[in-house]
C-alpha cells in the first residue's frame, strides 16, 4: 500500500476509524485498550470485536496505522500487539477534523446550531 497516498482520497473517514486515529495521536496502544478508551470517551458501549478488528485491518492496509511491535501491556501483563498512527493517518485525522469543523461552521451560519458566544 502506498504510504505517499493522498489523505484526501480517504475522506470522509468512518466514525470508528476517526476515533481510532484520535486515540492513537496521544500514544501507541494495543487493540483492546483502544476499544476501552474509545468506549469511555464516547460512551458508546457497542463496539463489536469482530467488526473492530476488521476495521483495524483495513486501516493497516490503507496505511493509516502501523504496528509498533509486541510488548507487555501494563494493564494485564499479557504480551500484545501495539499500534501507532502513521503520518498519513495523522494527516487524514486532521483533514477529517477540519472537514467536520467546516460542516459545523456551515450548520452555524444556517442557524442550525446556536452561534458561538
Amino acid at each position, binding site marked *: 500500500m502506498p504510504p505517499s497516498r493522498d489523505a484526501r482520497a480517504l475522506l470522509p473517514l468512518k466514525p470508528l476509524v476517526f476515533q481510532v486515529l484520535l486515540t492513537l495521536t496521544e500514544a501507541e496502544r*494495543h*487493540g*483492546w485498550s483502544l*476499544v476501552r478508551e474509545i468506549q469511555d470517551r464516547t460512551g458508546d458501549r457497542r463496539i*463489536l*470485536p*469482530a*467488526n*473492530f*478488528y*476488521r476495521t*483495524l*485491518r483495513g486501516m493497516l492496509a490503507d496505511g493509516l496505522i502501523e504496528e509498533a511491535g509486541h510488548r507487555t501491556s501494563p494493564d494485564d501483563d499479557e504480551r*500484545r*500487539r501495539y499500534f501507532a498512527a502513521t503520518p498519513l493517518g495523522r494527516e487524514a485525522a486532521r483533514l477529517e477534523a477540519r472537514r467536520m469543523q467546516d460542516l459545523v461552521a456551515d450548520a452555524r451560519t444556517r442557524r442550525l446550531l446556536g452561534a458561538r458566544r
Partner: protein
Amino acid sequence: MAPGPSRAGSAAYRLLLRLLPADVRRDFGDDMAQMFRDRRREAGRRPVRLLSVWLTAIGDVVATAAAARRGRRRDVSASRGSALTLVTGLRQGFRLVGRYRSSSLTAIATLALGIGANTAIFSLVDGVILHTLPYRDPARLMEVFEKRPKEGNMTGVVSPADFLDWRARSQSWSALAAYQETEVALTGAGDPVELEAADVSSGFFDVLGVEPVLGRTFRPGDERPGDDKVALLTHGCWERRFGADPTIVGRTIDLDGAPWTVIGVLPADYHFIESSQEVWLPLPLVTPGSAPPRASHFLSVYGRLKPGVTVAQARDDMDRLGRELEQEHPNENTGHSPNVIPMDEALTQSVRTSLIVLLTAVGFVLLIACVNVASLLLARGSTRTREMAVRASLGATRGRLLIQGLGESLALASLGGVAGVAVASITLHALPSVLPDQIALVDVAGITLNTRLLVFALGLTVATGLVFGFLPAWHGSRPDLNSTLKIGGRSAAGVSTLARRTLVIGEVTLATATLFGAGLALRSFGAILSQPLGFESTGRLAATVVLPVRRYASADLQRTFIAGLHDRLAAIPGVTAAGATTILPLTGSDSRRGVTIEGRAPIAGEPPVRMHLRSVTTEYLQAMGVPILRGREFGAADDERGQRVGIVNQTAAKRFWPGVDPVGRRFQFAPTEPWWTVVGVAGDVKEWGLNRDVNPLVYLPFAQRPAAAMTFVLAGPGDPRALTGPVRATVRQADPDLPVTDVATLDRVVDDSVRGQRAQATLMAAFGAVALALSAIGIFGVLAHLVSARTYEIGMRMTLGARPATIFRRLVAETVTETGIGLAIGLAAGVALMRVERTVLFNVAPWDAVTLASVAGILLAAAVGAVVIPGRRAMRIDPVRALRAD
C-alpha cells in the same frame, strides 16, 4: 464457581471465530476473545444480558465474516481453486441459511434448545454422579449391602454376625469396616450437650484412608469389651468444645455419664455422610457371654479393595461367602447375600433415578430437535430437487452437489451449536436458583459446563443433519434429470411421504413420552404438597437464637434467658401465641437417642430402640397448632424441680405402647439418667420431609432439658413477615450481642423443604413444554411443506370435484391418525419407563389416568392446531393456477 465467565463459553466463542478468515483470526483472535470475555463478565449472571451478549457476538462475527469474504473475493478472487472443498459447501450452506431465513431460524432455535438443555443437564448429572469422593483412591471404596432380592431390597443393612464373618472370611479387602450412626451426651464439661456421633469398627479409617492429625485411630483391640472406652474427636469438635487443646490425646472426657479416653483428632477436611458428627467411637461388636446377633440388621459396611482386586472379583468372593453363610445359618440367612456397590454409586443412588429421568426427558427433547431439523432439510431438499437437476444438467458433478447438501446441514448445525452453548450456559447459571444447594455431597453452584458433552450433543446433531441432509442431496444428485425436469419435481412429494409420516409419528411419540413424564412429576409434586403437615404453617414466623456457651454456660442461665425472651416475644402486639423448640420441623436438623421403654425388655442383640427428641417451651405445641390427642400439654409445674415428663407423638405411642394408653408410662435414655413419664400424646408432625414417614418422637419440657440454641415460633393473625422487625428489636433489648438467625415464615420453611421435588417438577415441566412446542413446530413444518408439495395434486382433486372442506378434513384426519399412532407408542413407552423409575413418583401410579388423558388431549390439540394453517392454505388453492404452474 469462579466469578469469571466459564471456559466453555470462551471455547465456543473461539469456535465461532473460525468463521473469520484465518489471517484475521491469527492476528486478532486473542484480542477479540479478550473483549468478549469482558463483555460476558460485565453481563454477570443476568441471563437476559448474557443472551444479548451472545446474540450480539454471533451477529457481529457472522456479519463481519460475510463482509470479509465478499471483500476478499472482489480483491483477490481467490475462491477459484478451492471449488470442491467442504468450505465452499459450508459457505454455500450459510448463504442458504440466509435465503431460507425463517425456516433456518426455526432449525437453529430448535437445535439451540435441544443442545443447550442437554448440555446443561448432562453437566449436572456428570458433576453429581462422576464427582470423586474426598478420600484416598476413591475408586477402590465399596459399600457392601445385604441384598434380599425376594423382598425387592438390594441395599439392606447388615447384621453384626454377618459382618464379622465377612471380615474374617473374605479375601478381597485390604480393610472392611462397619458403621452406625449414634448420639452421645457430652457431660462433665459444663451442661450436657448432645452430640451426633458414629460407632465404627476398627479399620474404618483404613477403609477411607484418613490419617489423624493427633494421636491414632481405632485398633482391633479397641473393639474388645472393657477396652472400648476410647474416642476420636473431629477437628471441629476439638476446636469448639476443647479449645483445640494440644494435649487432648490421653485426656478423659465424659460421654453419657461414663469416662472415655481421647485417642486422637481427625483432620479438619474430614467428613463422612453426616457432616455433623463430632465424636467417633468403637463399635462394640462382641458382648461377653453371648454370640453376636445375626437376625437383627443395623450396620452399614464399607470396604477398600485390595490392590489388584476388581469389583467383579470382590463380588464373586462375597457371593461365595454369602452362599456359605446361607448354608451354615439357614434360619437367619436364607435369601440374604452380600451386594458390593462402589461407594460413590451407593451415595448417589438416591438422586440417580431423578437424574436419569431428567436425562431421559432432556434426551427426548434433543431427539425431537434432530427430527425437526431432519424433516426441515428433507422438505427443503425435495423443493430443491429441481434446482439440483438443473445444476447437474449444467455439468455440476455429483460430488459437488453432495457437498452442497452437506454444507447446508453443517452450517445449520454449527450455528445451532453456538447458540446451544449460549442456552446451556444460561441454563446452568439459572439452575442453582431452582435446585437444592447440594446434591449427594456436591455443590450445585460449582458445576460447570461440560465441554466433552457439548461436543457429544453437537456431534449428534451434526450426524443427524448429515444423514438427513444426505438423503435429499443424494436424491437430488441422482442424474435422473429427464423425469425430474419433465414433471417439475412434483413426484418428489411421493418419494418421501413415508419418511415424513414416520417423522411426524416419531415426533409425537417423543413428545408424548416427555409430556407424560412431566405430567407424572407434576402430579407427584401436587401429591407431596397436599400431604397433611401435622402443624399450621400459615401466619407463623420462626427465628433462631443461639446462646454463646461462654456467656450462658449453665442450664440456669439458659433457662432464665429463654423464659424471659419468651415473655417479651409473646408480648409483641399481633402475637397470639409464642413457643420455642430445639429443632424446627423440615429443617433437616435432628436429635435422636436410644431409649429403654419400661416393661419392654430390650431383646438381646436388637439395635437400640430410638426416639427423636425435641425440647420445647410450654406454649410451643399450641403456637405450632399441633393437636394434643391424649393427656395434657406441658404446664408451669413441669420445671426443673418437677417430675421428668414428656409428650410422645402418635407414632411413638403406637410403636412402643401398642394397644395401651401411653399416658403414665415411663422411659429412660441411659441407666444413669432418671425415668421420664409420658403425660400426653401429640399429633404426628412431618418432621423429616413431606414425603417421608413420621418416626417416634418425644417432646420434653425445655425447663427440664435446656439447650443453647432455640427456634422461636410466633403465631398471629397478620402477615408474619411484619413481625421480623419487632422480633429482632426484642432480642436486641434482651441481649444486644445475640444474633437472630434463620428468620423465616413457616410457609417458607415448608416450601424450602420441597425444593428437590419442586426442581424435579419444574425441570420436567419445562422439558415437557419445550418438547411440546418443538414437536408442534415440527408437525407444522412437515404439514406446511406437504401442502405446498402437493399443490398440484390438490389442484387436480379440486378440478375433479373435491370440495375444499373435504380436502381440509382429509388433511386433519391424516394428521390425527399419525398423532394417534405416536400417542399410543409414546404413552406405552412412558408407562414402561415410569414403571422402572417409579421411585421418583409419590402417591401416583405410573399409569395415572388423569395424566394419560391430559397428555393425549394436549397433543391432539397441538397437532390439530399445527394442521390448521397449512390446511386452510390447501383449501384456498386455486385449481387453475395450481395446474398451470410449471
